[in-house]
């Protein structure tokens, strides 16, 4: 789980570095992201409180407190699923930028560690 979370953050950096990308939006619905963040924050707070009492759990709290990546990474039955939602500069071509983002994810070093790719989903959510 931690590996996937770190990989998701790595993928977010990859997506942001693609020319023509102006924004990266949460790939999961906003409500889900907010709930997940709230849950993580609450868990972090509880864990911190517990660690203050029993002197343990600080590492877990720090992990939970990390900002969730905007790029979604999960495992499906056929392999890894990566999803990114992006904004594209109006002066570029959305179709071309979208393909470049896909190819950048597919060719990134980190993804080759996984045996198979289920899907790489890239959605242009705004043209700025």
């Amino acid at each position: 789980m931690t590996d996937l979370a770190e990989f998701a953050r790595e993928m977010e950096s990859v997506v942001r570095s693609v020319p023509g990308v102006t924004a990266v939006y949460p790939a999961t619905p906003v409500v889900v992201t907010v709930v997940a963040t709230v849950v993580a924050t609450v868990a972090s707070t509880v864990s911190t409180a517990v660690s203050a009492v029993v002197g343990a759990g600080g590492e877990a709290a720090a992990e939970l407190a990390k900002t969730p990546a905007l790029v979604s990474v999960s495992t499906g039955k056929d392999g890894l699923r990566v999803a990114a939602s992006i904004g594209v500069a109006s002066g570029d071509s959305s179709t071309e930028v979208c393909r470049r983002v896909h190819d950048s994810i597919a060719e990134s070093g980190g993804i080759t560690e996984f045996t198979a790719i289920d899907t790489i989903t890239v959605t242009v959510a705004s043209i700025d």
Partner: protein
Amino acid sequence: MTPSHTPDSTAPWFAADDEPDHLDGHTIEELSDYLDRGKEPADPSVDESAACRIALASLERLHGAMGSMVQEEADRAPARDDSWVTTILDGIVRDSRSGRDIPISHPAPTARLSVTEGAVRGLLRAAGDSVDNIIVGRCRLDGDVTTPGVPVTVTVDANVYRGENIPTLADNLRSALLDALHSHTELTIAGIDVTIRDIFLIKPEPEGGVQNHD
């Protein structure tokens, strides 16, 4: 001039949204206030929402157009029908929602690429607003945009400054919209239907020029 046809709010492209007055939890009034505050303090729930960003861009252009209203017209505005502003604001909210996913082709079998209908409507609105003397009211994509190759018709309601040559403006608008669509989508465009209606705006007088009232 062709009379305006406001799309039925029960049409599927509109009714698909759960909260008709909200964009990712924000009303158009909240977004307008945010814009008036210079987007300060920064609100991540707005800044990180594609729908809100599309709406903000549209609002920003509308505010610019409103600012060009000459004082004489502004003074008379309360006594006149200003429902066109409400119609445009409603249109911004509806057009900014994500809507359907419009596929983008890629040879890899694992690729799932798309551009949202909301992004395309925002693009069309921006392209239309960039045409001199035009303010876009509503945009709609009619047809099965989710299936590649299926012909799609674009329907746009647009407002113009009083006294402008409407056929010429409509042609310019169609050209701008088509260029934008070809640059950002793989849609098969069967046609672009433009409905123009007048509004109570007078084109700002150039420095040293003469105001031409009709």
